[in-house]
Structures are given as structure tokens and as C-alpha cells.
């Protein structure tokens, strides 16, 4: 066994995987990676199952040191400058840290979450099939809380497999697609149109529970209290102040505000990677299109191994070079603990 030591890490960083399924009926939050495609890409690069447990790194920098042997890792998700002792490491590639070497990641340059997958995956004691951190419920393994400097993982010694890169589809831009409902009938046509046609900004007081949207106030037809019912990843609820909140992976399992629309599965990761202050729009799609996109998204994740390439073909971190002179980082975003849950019930 080798160890991977967290040498430094910012807030909003934790172990995440595909989430904790099957216990929402007991009020147990699903959690899991905010950007499932990037989690799956990082895991695929080191030969893990797509939703194996990995480190979800928040918008700030982080560094990791191999101890007691070599450790093979991969990074995908929000782009950052990355290097080992000054030698650049490209996003969407695997790399092997020799004993004592440190991988250093900078701030996210746009987006919020980068995934560090470890060959053989992070090991721990699953609860309801998951190691994902849910700090509120004291769940997560090996640490039931966000990561801190000094934490470490016992990991497989590096296999010595050749390093790989993964060719992901070009990032999609454009509006975040939603299907209306479940409570779109709690809003009149003018307010539905206001939601769909306005420009929104992600509030700085957003976190893994929910992204608050700043824009015009959406008015309800019959007030903002409904009898609590179930929520899903991407439910967009409208509380009394009219400012919508997109519920994310650490959402409560039920909620008592009308939900005007739901983000489609294929666009959830893209929403999660939208930094604070960035403008976004929504676009309504029909159920057939949403489900078609969900099936394509599942297929994309299943077929990620087909997108692996030898990493010999790139000698330089082109991205890092081209961005080296760009001043100013996108300040995210997702600052854990700034955001108070609406007191419900």
C-alpha cells in the first residue's frame, strides 16, 4: 500500500462518488459528485469504475503527496494549472506520482469542481453503498467531513500502467435545459415566461445543497407554502422571496416550496460547474427530449473507456500555457457554510 497525503486543500473539498441511493424514504440525502461526467472521466483514466470514490476539489487550490510508494492519479473537471515540481500536468490525463512527489493544483479557472481519481479508488466503509461525504448527517468515509490538510488515503501502489488522456466531447455552452414541473401550475404564464426568459446569476451564497439564482423575483399564484413533497437533483424551488434555488446533490429529500422546473440530468454537471456571478439562462425542453438526452448521457459515461488515448502525443500542457497570461481567476462560487438552509419544516 502507498499513501496519498493531502498536503494542502481549500474549503468545499470532499470525498464523493455516485451517491447514496435507496434511503431517501428515510430522509437520507443522496450526495455524490456535483459533476458526474468529470468524476467518471477521472476514474476511467485510472481504470476505476466510473462512479468510484474520488476527491472532489472545490474552487481553491490543493496539493497531494505520494508516500510509501508511487501513486497513480488522474484529474478532470474544472480546468486548473497543475504541476509536479514545476513540470506541467494536463487536465484529463493520468499521471504517476513517485514516492515523495507532490501534485499541485491551482485555482479553478472557470467552473468550480475538479476530480482527483486514484488508481484502485479511495477505500473506506460504505454506508448505503457510498463513501460520499454528507457532513450534515455525519456520513462519509474515510473522513465524514470536508477534507483538511494532513488527511491521507491508503491507496494501491501504482500499477505502472502507461499514462492516458481522455478525449471528452467539446464542452456544450448555451442555456441549461429544464423540464417544467412538478409544480409549474403554482405559477401563471407570465411568471413561467419570466423564469425561462430572464438572465440569472449564481449567487455567491451557493453550496452543495443548492445554487441560489439572482434575477427578477418570481411570483407564486397561491403563496409559497405547499405541503412538503419529494425533491430531486436539479429541482428548482421558488421560496417566498421569489429567488429560485436549484437543489443540488446535498439537497434535503423533501421540501415545502413550489418547484417550477427541473434541470435535466445531462445538464446538471454543467450547472454545477457554473461559477458565482456567471450569467446563465434556462431553456424549456419536452420530456421526450430530456429523456433522450439522459440516455445519451448514460451512454457517454458507459463508453468513456473508448475515449482513452495514449498520453505520449502531448508533451506540453497546452491549456496551462495558453492561460498563463490570463489575469484574474473566476471567483467561485461554492463556499461551504455561507448559505443557511431555509428553516423547513
Amino acid at each position, binding site marked *: 500500500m502507498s499513501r496519498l497525503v493531502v498536503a494542502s486543500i481549500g474549503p468545499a473539498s470532499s470525498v464523493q462518488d455516485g451517491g447514496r*441511493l*435507496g*434511503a*431517501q*424514504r*428515510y*430522509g*437520507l*440525502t443522496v450526495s455524490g459528485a456535483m459533476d458526474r461526467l468529470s468524476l467518471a472521466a477521472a476514474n476511467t483514466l485510472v481504470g476505476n469504475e466510473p462512479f468510484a470514490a474520488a476527491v472532489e476539489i472545490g474552487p481553491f487550490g490543493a496539493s497531494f503527496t505520494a508516500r510509501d510508494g508511487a501513486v497513480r492519479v488522474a484529474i478532470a473537471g474544472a480546468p486548473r494549472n497543475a504541476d509536479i515540481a514545476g513540470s506541467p500536468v494536463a487536465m484529463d490525463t493520468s499521471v504517476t506520482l513517485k514516492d515523495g512527489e507532490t501534485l499541485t493544483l491551482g485555482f479553478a479557472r472557470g467552473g468550480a469542481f475538479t476530480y482527483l481519481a486514484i488508481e484502485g479508488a479511495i477505500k473506506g466503509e460504505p*454506508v448505503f453503498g457510498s463513501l460520499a461525504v454528507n457532513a*450534515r*448527517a*455525519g*456520513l462519509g468515509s474515510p473522513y465524514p467531513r470536508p477534507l483538511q490538510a494532513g488527511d491521507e488515503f491508503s491507496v494501491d501502489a501504482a500499477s505502472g500502467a502507461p499514462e492516458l488522456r481522455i478525449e471528452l466531447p467539446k464542452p456544450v455552452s448555451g442555456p441549461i435545459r429544464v*423540464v*417544467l*414541473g*412538478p*409544480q409549474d401550475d403554482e405559477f401563471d404564464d407570465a411568471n413561467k415566461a419570466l423564469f425561462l426568459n430572464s438572465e440569472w446569476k449564481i449567487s455567491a451564497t451557493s453550496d452543495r445543497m443548492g445554487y441560489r439564482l439572482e434575477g427578477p423575483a418570481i411570483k407564486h399564484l397561491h403563496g409559497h407554502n*405547499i*405541503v*412538503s*413533497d*419529494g*425533491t*430531486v*437533483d*436539479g*429541482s428548482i424551488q421558488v421560496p417566498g422571496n421569489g429567488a429560485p434555488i436549484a437543489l443540488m446533490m446535498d439537497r*434535503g*429529500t*423533501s421540501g415545502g416550496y413550489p*418547484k417550477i422546473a*427541473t*434541470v*435535466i*440530468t445531462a445538464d446538471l454537471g454543467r450547472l454545477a460547474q457554473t461559477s458565482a456571478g456567471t450569467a446563465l439562462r434556462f431553456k424549456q425542453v419536452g*420530456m*421526450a427530449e*430530456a*429523456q433522450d*438526452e*439522459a*440516455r445519451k448521457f*448514460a451512454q457517454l459515461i458507459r463508453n468513456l473507456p473508448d475515449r482513452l488515448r495514449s498520453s505520449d502525443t502531448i508533451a506540453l500542457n497546452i491549456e496551462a500555457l495558453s492561460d498563463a497570461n490570463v489575469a484574474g481567476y473566476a471567483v467561485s462560487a461554492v463556499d461551504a457554510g455561507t448559505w*443557511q*438552509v*431555509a*428553516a*423547513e*419544516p
Partner: protein
Amino acid sequence: MAATLPPPRLLPSGDSAVTVEFSRTIDDDANQRVLALDKALAASPIDGITESVPTYRSLLVHYDPGKIGFDALGDRLLALASQKLPPATKARRWRIPVAYGGEHGIDLEDVAKALNTTPDDIVARHVGGDYKVAMIGFTPGWSYLSGLDKSLHMSRRQNPRLLTPAGTISIGGVQAGIQCLAAPSGWHLLGRTPVRTYQLHRNPTFLTEPGDRVTFFAIDHKTFEELDRAAEAGELIAEQVVA
């Protein structure tokens, strides 16, 4: 029983979930039908459904759109939901100890004042209730109960508290609740129970199921401390009543 309810409605909840809604309000008949549909799906699973989440008035059904589409699943759910389903099998019944008032129930005096009566009378009305777990949600193990005495119905606090203690026994609106973890709440806090409805390394991890019956009994604060220690050590201190 369900004669007054409108036909169930399907509410799309994204591309991978659908809500089967029986009522827009808190309604015991609707809740019974929610739980009956939930039981029916557990007894004869539909391929593609990944989990279901009962609430007061609706059943949220999560599914894999790679296995079944919205239209096909919706048809089957509506057909099941519209049937006269067999009543849920005999429910389990729990007796839950509660230390009322004082530091454990900081709103008891105020609730008594607001209702022009004494704290003892509030406790008597709360203990006298025969409750049903209508749903579990918000945080792990938080059991929402129907069956609160009508005289105890009162609106939630103007200013919700950002943190209320683990084990809080509270009332809000027409609902009563057993809270497991410390959490924000706008409800009125009557007491605390040493019972953990959710405890990670205990078997079972979750004590209550939607549909379970619940009654409360009063304990003094010294007994609370004793039971709390036993519960912390993993003992299942709630009493199950054999019908």
C-alpha cells in the same frame, strides 16, 4: 374512504423521477393511498424504478429512463394508483418516551399561554394522541406525524430557529414531529426523546417507517439522561407494542 379525493395526477419531476400526487393538502386518506401505492410497488416491482419516497400527499418515484420511459411508467403508476389497493398490512406501533418542558421543551410554556391553558394540559393532549408516521424527510429519520389533536394546531414560529436539538419532539401547523439530528426548525419545541430514529451503526439504522403508528409517554428528566446513555450505546430504547 377515498371518495372525496380527485383522481391521482402525474407531475413530471425531471427526466428521472415522477410524482404521483393524490392531494394538494395534508389528508389522511391521501396519505393512506400514498403508502398503499408504495407497498404495491415494493410487492411487485416495476423494472426501472430505483427508489420511491412517500410524502404526506404524493409518492415520488425515481427511475432510470434508460429502462422505462415517462409515458410507459406513468400509465402503469396511474393504473396502480387508481385501483382500490388492499389496505396496508398491520402497522407496527412504537411507544416513544419524551421529557417535556424545561430545557428539553423550551416552547412548552409559550404554547400553553398561547392556547390559554397549562403546560400539563398541553402534555396531556400531546401524549393522548394516536399518531401515524406520514413521511420521513428533511434530515435522516425526521418523522412527520399525522394525528395531532386539533386543539394543538397552531402556525409555525415567525422566526425559525437555525438550530434545534437532536431528539426534539415538536409541533408545527397540523403536524407533529420526531426529529433525530440537530437541525433548523420553525416548529414549537415541546420536549425531547432519547430515542434515535436514525443511528448509523445500529440494526436497524432507521427505526421508523412511513405507516408506523406512534404514541408518546412522559418521562422525567433523570430518566431521559439514563435512557439517553443507553441509546448512545446503541440500545433500541423505543418500545415496540405487539398488537
